């Protein structure tokens, strides 16, 4: 490519929104009138990134996973397609070290430890936030203390202002690729102290989009250039959730029920001579959860959380082809159903000893059970049941200039199985310390540092998966060290309103990493604790609010530099990839968002850049290199108020430059797509 063209194609769009946001603080304030407002003096102590309000709604993305890509340090593993799996990884420490909380309670998958964030739509999201380490609050469950990084998804609460008793929103989205997505949201005041909400949506798409593979000969002539249609990436899904919110004297409560079901294609790798496959996945996820908070005295605060979840996953692998006049199978066939259940409770106590010193203690209890029905598989299934008791004690000091949080969390795990060998009981303890220092009285500049050790328990698959699982696995440990700062600068009487910047540098070390170790047969692996990975990196993000006359703008930019190298030895021998950057870890990645508001018009431009990285073949050799990818998305939204209702219409373009890219090798992503949204608010 010509250098000039290069600048235009990838430079210009990227650098426009350089200094950049604060996500419509007004909106969240307004809505907070309905909620208990708590001061957050520890906000600057722990690295946090947030997307909320209007920005979240106008970001031209559909799922939570797509939105999380705008946080620095997050990598989304996206297998493409509308039904494709999307998982997140923070600081490249591994999916298992990210805790994902939905309205305050963790989403769990005891079977394989991964949460598919592609299935959570943004429609009803109020706020997404990412904390490195843990949330800057000690009044939280033991679970909240237990991950290396934590993502909180907070759904909308009823926003019944000015004496309104009912809100109803009906929306419809469609795309230039076959996609239909009607949804609704209903909010109602039931009594002065109780409100409710109900929302639902349906997504139906055949998931067909074009992808392209093109290669040149070494002399620059064309070797091949082929365009095909992604198949078996269709989806039909339904989501319904309802919630009640109550206010009490000195407290509050909420309860919600969630239902999701989907029937989707699980598109496979595009490989030579095989551009489609027939793997299907059906999911049913149901959970109900509640939360109760009460301040018994001015000093003693109490919280109770509870949840029940049931997940069913039915996986069918059945590829057939015609061979010599007969319908025959292709690969191995599967028809497996897995049933997971979870019961979770947490009791949280906090006591303010003085106005600068708080202590808290929390105890969680969790029960997980996995059943399976696997057709044609005759090895006995383990039917594991796990009992987990988690405890955490924490304390925080706020001496104005100097702030500190110290916590220790522990876990006791006991398991039972019907077949095979059960895992031994486990007891683990891990500490964390967070320090903040504000050197100047009148400048909003904060220094921070933390050190945290976490462990992740082996999943049911790690322990019991037929012929692969190893019940004697130990937990995997992660040590994380972080130093950083935040700086916020207010402006008066200029076009600028506010500028904030934060940056952190970190070091991570994974030991006893649970990986599949090879045995003599390629089809046979043995889960083991032999992995070792070390990483370091720098992250920065900046936000700028400004205005030109009546036009309000804000801009957000983030950047991350990461190394995460593998030092695994097998039987004392280094692998040929020893010391190489682990798969799908870009050295450089970044994003930017610019939004502008004027008189009901809302324009959003967003850009994502993920640099060079290496694919799952591990070795950092040219053959395994995966090209950088970067996409530009633009959306234009208009809110038109009528007498009795409000109309919202939006047009979005995703992947404006029609880049044919892959996030995961051999899993092509869609090119340019147009999206149309319309909504009516009563």
């Amino acid at each position: 490519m010509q250098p000039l063209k290069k600048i235009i194609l990838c430079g210009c769009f990227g650098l426009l929104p350089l200094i950049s946001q604060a996500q419509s603080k007004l909106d969240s304030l307004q809505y907070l009138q309905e909620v208990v407002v708590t001061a957050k003096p520890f906000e600057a102590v722990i690295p946090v990134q947030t997307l909320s309000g209007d920005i979240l709604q106008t970001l031209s993305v559909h799922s939570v996973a797509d939105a999380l890509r705008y946080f620095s340090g997050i990598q989304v593993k996206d297998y493409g397609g509308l039904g494709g799996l999307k998982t997140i990884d923070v600081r490249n420490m591994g999916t298992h070290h990210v805790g994902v909380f939905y309205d305050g309670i963790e989403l769990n998958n005891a079977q394989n430890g991964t949460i598919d964030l592609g299935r959570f739509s943004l429609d009803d999201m109020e706020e997404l936030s990412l904390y490195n380490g843990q949330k800057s609050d000690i009044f939280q469950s033991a679970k909240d203390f237990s991950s290396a990084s934590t993502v909180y998804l907070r759904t909308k609460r009823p926003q019944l202002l000015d004496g309104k008793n009912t809100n109803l929103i009906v929306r419809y989205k469609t795309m230039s690729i076959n996609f239909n997505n009607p949804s609704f949201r209903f909010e109602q005041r039931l009594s002065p102290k109780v409100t409710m909400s109900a929302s639902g949506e349906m997504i139906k798409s055949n998931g067909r989009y074009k992808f392209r593979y093109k290669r040149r000969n070494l002399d620059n002539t064309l070797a091949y250039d082929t365009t095909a249609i992604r198949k078996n990436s269709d989806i039909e899904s339904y989501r319904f959730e309802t919630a009640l919110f109550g206010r009490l004297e000195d407290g509050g409560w909420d309860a919600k029920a969630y239902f999701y079901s989907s029937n989707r294609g699980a598109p496979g790798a595009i490989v030579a001579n095989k551009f489609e496959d027939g793997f299907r996945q059906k999911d049913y996820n149901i959970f109900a959860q509640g939360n109760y908070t009460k301040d018994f005295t001015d000093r003693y605060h109490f919280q109770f959380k509870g949840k029940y979840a049931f997940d069913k996953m039915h996986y069918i692998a059945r590829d057939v082809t015609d061979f010599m006049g007969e319908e025959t199978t292709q690969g191995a066939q599967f028809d497996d159903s897995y049933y997971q259940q979870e019961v979770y409770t947490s009791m949280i106590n906090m006591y303010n000893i003085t106005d600068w010193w708080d202590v808290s203690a929390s105890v969680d209890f969790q029960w997980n059970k996995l059943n399976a029905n696997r057709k044609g598989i005759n090895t006995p299934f383990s039917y594991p049941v796990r009992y987990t008791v988690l405890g955490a004690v924490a304390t925080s000091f706020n001496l104005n200039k100097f702030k500190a949080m110290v916590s220790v969390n522990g876990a006791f795990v006991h398991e039972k199985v019907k077949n095979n060998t059960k895992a031994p009981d486990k007891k683990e303890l891990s500490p964390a310390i967070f320090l903040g220092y504000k050197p100047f009285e009148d400048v909003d500049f904060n220094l921070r540092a933390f050190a945290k050790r976490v462990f992740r328990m082996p999943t049911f698959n790690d322990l019991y998966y037929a012929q692969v699982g190893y019940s004697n696995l130990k937990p995997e440990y992660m040590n994380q060290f972080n130093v950083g700062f935040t700086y916020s600068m207010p402006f008066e009487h200029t076009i600028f309103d506010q500028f904030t910047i934060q940056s952190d540098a970190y070091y991570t070390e994974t030991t006893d990493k649970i990986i599949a170790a090879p045995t003599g047969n390629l089809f046979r692996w043995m889960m083991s604790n032999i992995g070792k990975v070390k990483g370091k990196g720098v992250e920065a993000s900046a936000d700028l609010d400004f205005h030109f006359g009546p036009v309000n703008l804000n801009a957000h930019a983030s950047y991350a530099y990461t190394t995460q190298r593998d030092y695994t030895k097998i039987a004392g021998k280094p692998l040929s990839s020893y010391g190489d950057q682990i798969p799908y870890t870009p050295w450089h990645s970044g994003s930017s968002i610019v939004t502008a508001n004027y008189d009901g018009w809302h324009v959003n431009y967003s850009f994502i850049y993920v640099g060079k990285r290496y694919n799952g073949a591990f070795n950092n050799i040219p053959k395994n290199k995966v090209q950088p990818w970067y996409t530009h998305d633009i959306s234009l939204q208009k809110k038109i108020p009528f007498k009795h209702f409000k109309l919202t219409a939006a047009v979005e373009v995703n992947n404006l430059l029609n880049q044919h890219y892959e996030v995961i090798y051999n899993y092509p992503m869609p090119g340019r797509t147009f999206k149309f949204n319309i909504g009516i608010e009563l």
Partner: protein
Amino acid sequence: MKKIFKIGLILTTVFSITLLHSCREDEYIFGTEVASRGEPNPDAKVLGFYMLNEGNMGMNRASIDFYDFRAAQYKTDIYSEANPNVVKELGDVGNDIKIYGDKLYAVINVSNKIEVMDKWTAKRIKVIDVPNCRYMAFHKDKAYISSYAGKVSIDPNAEIGFVAEIDTVTLELKRKVTVGYQPEEMVIANDKLYVANSGGYRVPNYDRTVSVIDLETFEVIKTIDVAINLHRMAIDKYGFIYVSSRGDYNKIPSNVYIIDSRTDEVVKNMNTGASEFCMSGDSLYYYRVEWSWAAGGNAINFGIIDTRTQEVITDQIIKDGTEKDIMIPYGLAINPETKEIFVTDAQNYVVTGYVYCYSPDGYLKWKTKAGNIPAHFTFLE
């Protein structure tokens, strides 16, 4: 205020320079890398060997390397450059490679195809689609291919595999015969084809038979009960067939059995396991990789069976201790001319593997990086 703009300007410049250097470029076909390994042998009658790297599933990384004995050069991934117009290159998971006549055949399992190439240039002649194909054997003007694929049944993995016949002149599929569950390697003796059935999809109800097929009628004429999870097959010059059982990777260890092709009966249990073997003259070279719970790792052994006495004559092939560097042996071959020993190391099946060359008396001559999961050899004469 000006300061902010200045910082902004500097950041902008840095950011755009970074982006300039990190844009997408046109993608090129995978190039061959040449490495000098060993000593040139200008008079070598065996000109070289092709090495099929399996490539991890889903990665589309099957590749063919070539070692040139005359020039002493190891060339990685020769297929991609020889066939630049083949979309997505050789394919996903190579499983067997053989030369017969003037043609080079590569079995690409997940790509459901047999790639037929010119044996001198590795240029594609034809693709034959065979679902879930595994191994090949040749006899007269026919090629035989075993396949895990079978007629669709309600119960997953209850399908019975087949062997298909291909005309090596027209490269057309001719006949098909149903054998046992998940058939693997084959040998031919007295116009009969012997197929080792594994039943690998049916854990723990493995198949335990060898199917005997009359090549005239292309029907199964006998089913020999041997042991569970059969895999490798080799035939000596006296008509004895060596067949390996993989065991159940847990309580039942791997083992080798001998079938007499005149009686089609099992005549001997070797009471020694083998993951792979290679017949050379009267010697059957083998190695064994077995997971040991006690050791918490793989136990690896190399050895030779003398086919005249049908006894293990040595449990040590490599004499200089370098076999300890091999993480997972995954391929074995003996140069028919020089009797040099070739062993591959698949590492953890994910990363780049190695090929080791040993002198006939077991001393390391050279070692080189190959592709992902180097596994199958065929010599070019």
